[in-house]
């Protein structure tokens, strides 16, 4: 509550020795923010909010959870049945995982659309990719903890991926397990790491924020703020906008927690893990489905694998492609050669952006299907494995070929001079008011 110069004696005393209040005033209140941010810019702070919710509910759950193969399943059910509001904490945490990915995926796609990864924000973007990777590891290990059938078999399948590593693969997998199968040591270490990783995420989020406040926020026009007339202080403008965003988000979140808590879940995970019985069809959680589709797209007999078949096994190719599909994001700031950030002024990229989004969505569907299921009832012989190969190919084409080429070939539209005076050289003008509310305009 430091309000300019109206500081109390204690606040002043502390601040002269440890300038936390000056820092907060500077970074949370005064922080000059472009005045034309749309609601798509809400998802960063929203992700931070979900992270806090996940950590707090997680700590409460950990107080009642037992990381032992004989008790894990029952301890989760004890939380659901006997612990005061345990069902609430558990359902918030369980659905919170899905919410976290929804929010973060929107945040990432916003960055892709408006070129938020471009110079000078390369490190900001790369830190974000690290957060994504840590989130995925955390989510994967967290899903193992209830020790249901999907927990167990998900853990088995994913850890077995590492057996594709040449020469040392088997040893690596044994090391990951701490035994010769997913067993009690595996559950114990996953619990330990699942508790640790969120705090690593917090650390990287802090770096992400430092980088953000150094390079300043991007905006829907993708141009730099030229002076004070282009920015407004973060508080109260964006704090209030963020509060409103959190309110809308909480309504969405609460809808699932209270009325469809198992919507994102698998019925099989309400059956206790049985190392002798595999469920008929193993699917990961929805947020992993696209990667799962990429993993499965590499098979001995199909085109994607043929060009590299002399080099490695199909299994290894799938694993590399799956990890590559995320790691390629690190290279994106350099793969994209366009001088223009925002897709608003990139007519061709804009269309490919939507194509890419749809492609990711289809990959997700493919990941959920059995590979040899028919895609269309009216088109005999076209199976999901085929669709997965096409969409996987496009995924990498988009990053590795399209981005570098498009930057060179595309003729961007004229770019406004500044955020507050968007007079277009081409003749048209964009009203500043309208630019500030692009969502309503769209």
């Amino acid at each position: 509550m430091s309000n300019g110069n109206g500081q109390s004696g204690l606040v002043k005393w502390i601040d002269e020795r440890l300038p936390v209040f000056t820092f907060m005033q500077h970074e949370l209140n005064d922080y000059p923010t472009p005045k034309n941010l749309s609601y798509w810019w809400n998802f960063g702070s929203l992700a931070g909010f979900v992270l806090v919710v996940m950590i707090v509910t997680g700590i409460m759950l950990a107080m009642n959870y037992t990381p032992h193969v004989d008790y894990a399943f029952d301890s989760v059910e004890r939380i659901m049945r006997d612990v005061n509001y345990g069902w609430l904490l558990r359902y918030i945490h369980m659905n919170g995982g899905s919410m976290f990915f929804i929010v973060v995926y929107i945040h990432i796609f916003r960055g892709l659309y408006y070129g938020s990864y471009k110079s000078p924000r390369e490190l900001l973007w790369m830190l974000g990719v690290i957060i994504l990777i840590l989130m995925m590891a955390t989510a994967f290990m967290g899903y193992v903890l209830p020790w249901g059938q999907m927990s167990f078999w998900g853990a088995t399948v994913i850890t077995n991926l590492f057996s594709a590593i040449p020469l040392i693969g088997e040893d690596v997998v044994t090391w990951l397990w701490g035994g010769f199968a997913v067993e009690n040591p595996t559950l114990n270490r996953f619990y330990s790491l699942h508790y640790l990783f969120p705090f690593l995420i917090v650390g990287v989020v802090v770096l992400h924020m430092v980088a953000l406040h150094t390079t300043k926020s991007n905006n829907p026009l993708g141009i730099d703020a030229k002076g004070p007339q282009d920015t407004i202080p973060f508080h109260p403008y964006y704090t209030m906008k963020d509060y409103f965003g959190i309110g809308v988000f909480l309504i969405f979140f609460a809808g699932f927690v209270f009325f469809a808590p198992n919507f994102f879940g698998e019925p099989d995970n309400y059956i206790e893990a049985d190392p002798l019985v595999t469920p008929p069809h193993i699917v990961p959680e929805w947020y992993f489905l696209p990667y799962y589709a990429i993993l499965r797209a590499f098979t001995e007999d199909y085109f994607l694998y043929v060009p590299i078949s002399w080099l490695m096994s199909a299994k290894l190719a799938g694993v590399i492609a799956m990890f590559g599909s995320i790691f390629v994001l690190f290279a994106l700031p350099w793969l994209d050669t366009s001088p223009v950030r925002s897709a608003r002024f990139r007519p061709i990229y804009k269309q490919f952006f939507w194509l890419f989004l749809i492609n990711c969505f289809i990959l997700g569907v493919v990941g959920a299907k059995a590979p040899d299921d028919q895609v269309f009832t009216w088109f005999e012989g076209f199976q999901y494995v085929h669709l997965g190969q096409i969409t996987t190919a496009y995924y990498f084409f988009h990053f590795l070929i399209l981005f570098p080429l498009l930057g060179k070939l595309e003729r961007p539209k004229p770019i406004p001079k500044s955020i507050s005076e968007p007079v277009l050289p081409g003749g048209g003008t964009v009203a500043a008011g309208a630019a500030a509310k692009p969502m309503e305009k769209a």
Partner: protein
Amino acid sequence: MMRRAGFLTTLAALGLFASQTAQAAGDAHPIPSQEWSHSGLFGTFDQAQLQRGFTVYQNVCAGCHSLRLVAYRNLAAIGLTEDEIKAVAAEQEVDGEPDEDGEPTTRPAIPADRFVPPFPNEQAARAANGGSMPPDLSLMTKARIGGPDYLYALLVGYQDEAPEGVEMGEGMSYNIYYPGNQIAMAAPLAEGAVDYADGTEASVEQMAKDVTAFLSWAAEPELEDRKRMGVKVLLFLIVLTGLFYAVKKKVWADVH
């Protein structure tokens, strides 16, 4: 085979992809949906029905199927009195403390104990059931696609004769809703298999409905609390979000 019941059926329903219905290789019938008092935004359990369902569980299911996550004390939630609960619990024996000579002892179960399983271990359960393991029922409605609808369908889906040309395995029964159609459990419900205390006629459909409702409660005992709280939380959040929106608009009014 369609597994992801919630998320992907929704996608399919949006008409985005060819929908393959929830059935294995075209041999199990689609599951008809039923009316349940506990579904919907304001759904609550019907206590009389839960008590009837408990009668069915006790007299029909409990011989083979455990309910190990539910405690006898939980029966207070379906309207049993303390003495009734004590009596139900006391019918079962559980392991007690070893006596002075170190010999194992047993004692009658108390309300704080969880439902005592019918078999001491999986091997015993299999031995008594022709090699098949009767699954625990505590989470059954959450652990199957289709939930209570599936459970009800399964209980009424038995047919005396397998269709022409279907080779039945040893000791198997034909059920039109079971994946693969051959189920190791013989038709559990027969007309009048239980006597309902409230005089309701014990038809197969009635018993199937009641016991499914009871098992829905066993799987989600928090359901009523959850929905009641959810309505309040949503109302609060809608007002709060409305206020936030108003504040946001006021604050932004001077930005041009």
